[in-house]
């Protein structure tokens, strides 16, 4: 009897597909709530200008987060992204400012150094058979930061050529290039993760490493790719950062890994691997950026900001938990 009633209350079609959408990107509800609240609290919040600010401000973390998604999907973690960002931009600075070489070379060096350190993470994990990437990436985190400080004697490098600054600085109409880059990268990652063999293997490894191995997946190879890509993304995030502030400094990216991990987890990925989506991660990164922006607009004092950020992180995830619980009940 009650079943029949339930059936009636559920019109199919549109509503269902929106529900399906929410089901996939649960954190979206959190983002929407946050947006609504901030729109009420500040009339400056929902302006094109401010939204573009948020888009730009979220881009560095969004790039780090999408890189971070891969290790987390394999039930791993990458603590070194902030440090890799730093070493990437410092070497780029040395090449294209201090040594005055071509900006294109600088960009290549930046990305290559990022990828190389990521590769190092992957090799340490798989070849040394370290028990967990926490160790290998904690090691690299220190090593990369140390080297970044050593090679520059802790001095910042400024005055980058326009080409290098382009990504982090320019606009297409009102839209920051860095945000377009983020969207592009996310689309590529979406295709990579859902449609390529390696992408699917990443989920498989996170779901059950042993089963993946026995199904003929070269687990080590996939893990190496995963960490290399994460490093590459750190390099790319660095490139955007340099464009944004027109300078590179060796302490850049300090503790950025926490924000990146938070974005991934708020976006619905699981630390136990195998679960998580590209778009969820984007929403996670947006939640963090919107929150920071809103607190600035409201001129909330620094100490309260911290506490509020803590509460919102928990609330955002809790909203998702509630949603899941409800959808299970139906």
């Amino acid at each position, binding site marked *: 009897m009650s079943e029949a009633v339930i059936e009636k209350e559920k019109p199919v079609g549109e509503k269902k597909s929106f529900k399906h959408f929410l089901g996939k990107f649960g954190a979206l509800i959190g983002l929407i709530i946050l947006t609504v609240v901030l729109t009420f609290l500040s009339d400056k919040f929902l302006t094109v200008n401010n939204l573009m600010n948020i888009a730009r401000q979220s881009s560095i973390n969004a790039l780090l987060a999408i890189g971070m998604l891969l290790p987390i999907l394999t039930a791993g973690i990458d603590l070194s992204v902030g440090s890799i960002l730093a070493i990437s931009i410092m070497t780029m600075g040395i090449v294209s400012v201090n040594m005055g070489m071509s900006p294109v070379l600088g960009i290549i060096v930046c990305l290559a150094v990022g990828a190389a350190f990521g590769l190092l993470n992957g090799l340490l994990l798989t070849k040394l058979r370290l028990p967990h990437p926490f160790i290998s990436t904690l090691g690299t985190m220190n090593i990369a930061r140390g080297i970044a400080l050593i090679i520059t004697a802790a001095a910042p490098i400024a005055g980058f050529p326009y080409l290098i600054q382009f990504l982090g600085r320019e606009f297409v109409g009102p839209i920051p290039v860095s945000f377009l880059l983020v969207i592009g990268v996310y689309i590529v990652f979406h295709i990579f993760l859902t449609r390529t*063999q390696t992408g699917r*293997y990443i989920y*498989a490894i996170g*779901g059950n490493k042993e*089963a993946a*191995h*026995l199904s*003929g997946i070269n687990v080590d190879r996939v893990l190496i790719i995963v960490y290399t890509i994460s490093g590459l993304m750190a390099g790319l995030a660095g490139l955007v950062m340099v464009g944004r502030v027109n300078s590179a400094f060796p302490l850049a990216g300090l503790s950025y890994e926490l924000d990146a991990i938070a974005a991934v987890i708020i976006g619905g990925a699981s630390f136990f691997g195998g679960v998580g989506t590209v778009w969820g991660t984007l929403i996670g990164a947006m939640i963090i950026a919107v929150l920071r922006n809103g607190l600035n607009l409201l001129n909330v004092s620094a100490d309260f900001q911290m506490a509020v950020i803590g509460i919102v992180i928990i609330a955002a995830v809790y909203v998702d938990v509630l949603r899941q619980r409800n959808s299970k009940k139906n």
Partner: protein
Amino acid sequence: MAVHAGSLLELKGIKKSFNQNHVLKGIDLEVTAGEVHVLLGENGAGKSTLIKIMTGAYQKDAGEVYWEGKQVQVNNPVDAMNLGIATIYQELNVIPELKVYENIFLGREIKKGGKMSMIDHKKMKKEAERALGMLGQDPKIADQILGELGIGQQQLVEIAKALTLDAKLIIMDEPTASLSGSEVEQLYDCVEQLTERGIAIVFISHRLDEIRRMGDRITVLRDGYKIETLPVKTTETDHWIELMVGRSLDEKYPKKSFEPGREGFRVENLKVAGTEAPVDFSIHYGEIVGISGLVGAGRTELARAIFGADKREHGNLFIDGKQVKIKSPKDAIKAGMAFITEDRKSEGLLLDQPLDFNIGLANMKKFKNKSNLVNLKGIRDEADNYVKELKVRPSDIDLHARKLSGGNQQKVVIAKWLCTNAKVFIFDEPTRGIDVGAKVEVYRLMNQLVDNGAIVLMISSDLPEILGMCDRVLVMSEGRITADLPRNEATQERIMKAATGTADAAEKPLIAATGG
């Protein structure tokens, strides 16, 4: 095993659904003290769900539960334990990191004194040793880390755990699925002792011979309804099957004989790391070769070594007379091999991924399109076909593997490997936990594979299945092949003798060790 009067546990009108899937649609069940009450039903019929409601692991949607005549609420596993219900769940529920004796006493540790005092490790170990001894196991394993044991031994630990509970009702959800003959015998003895003391057993199994030997009464479930409760003694096995699947089954072992062909697969001088002697055997086209043996005989280890999942010290493999180099499962799959693993949960499935992902996993290359992207639609279609062919239920490929019943999960693992179009199939306990109807499907499938020119090697602890389906039986004991019996010579006695290692077999390891 006489049926004692007085109902111990009574269920009335139990209903349970998961989302839109109505699994139990009003089940009545009565268990009396001292009886062995069998639940029979196809995979996904709701047997495990029903017992999980009894134990408080799931909450019922509707219905009543009576314990010794009084209505009770069982809200969680602790409630059930307090009533005196001990449970062996279908999927292993053990802590691999803890020692065996700790697993046996998990949740009700023996303490030295009052409630707040320390754990008495010594006493627990002793008690555990006793319980393991009752099951005919080496008491010494009590002190081992559980995760280091094979899956069969882990299952025995779970049984020991239930035995040490001072329970009035013991629920066993397919306890014998990964046990072989002699362990099952031990279990029979235990059950007999228990029922004599008035303890009731609720028993689930897909092995009908076992039910015949042990059961007092059977309750058959189908499509969420209770069909009938009937006594074991006075009814025919075929009748049970008919009630269970809704139609009669022609033969339980649809063995087809083929013309034996040339040698298709050969293992030469293969030595698994840690074992004493190398192994040699070969398989010809047109035959199904079985490997029998006791739990821990090393059959799985051998299969894993062949498949490149574990390191081997040395050994050569030949397919069609050509040597194949296999260093990893990837190599093995490339060479045309498939390995249906024994533990579906830990080695077979991505539990939190949908069925199509699971089924396409081992052969994703096949689904790549021109632009090198994975053709998701292709995987879906193919998965859908297998799900229908193997009668996986529910046949929804978007369902996560975790949500399927144990037997249906097993079918998904089989589907994954069929999808690879391999040439050499190694089945490790392929029918573990699947119902009679589905078993027949798997056997037919093996026939079909052989017919289509594939090589089939089947490791099984189910002796009737080995006898019923294999053209040749290899028997393993302590990592070595102790017998190679053609179909007409393979009898239960000869296999058991070779498996338990008679006196002369026991001497061999020493000779092998010094000679190697």
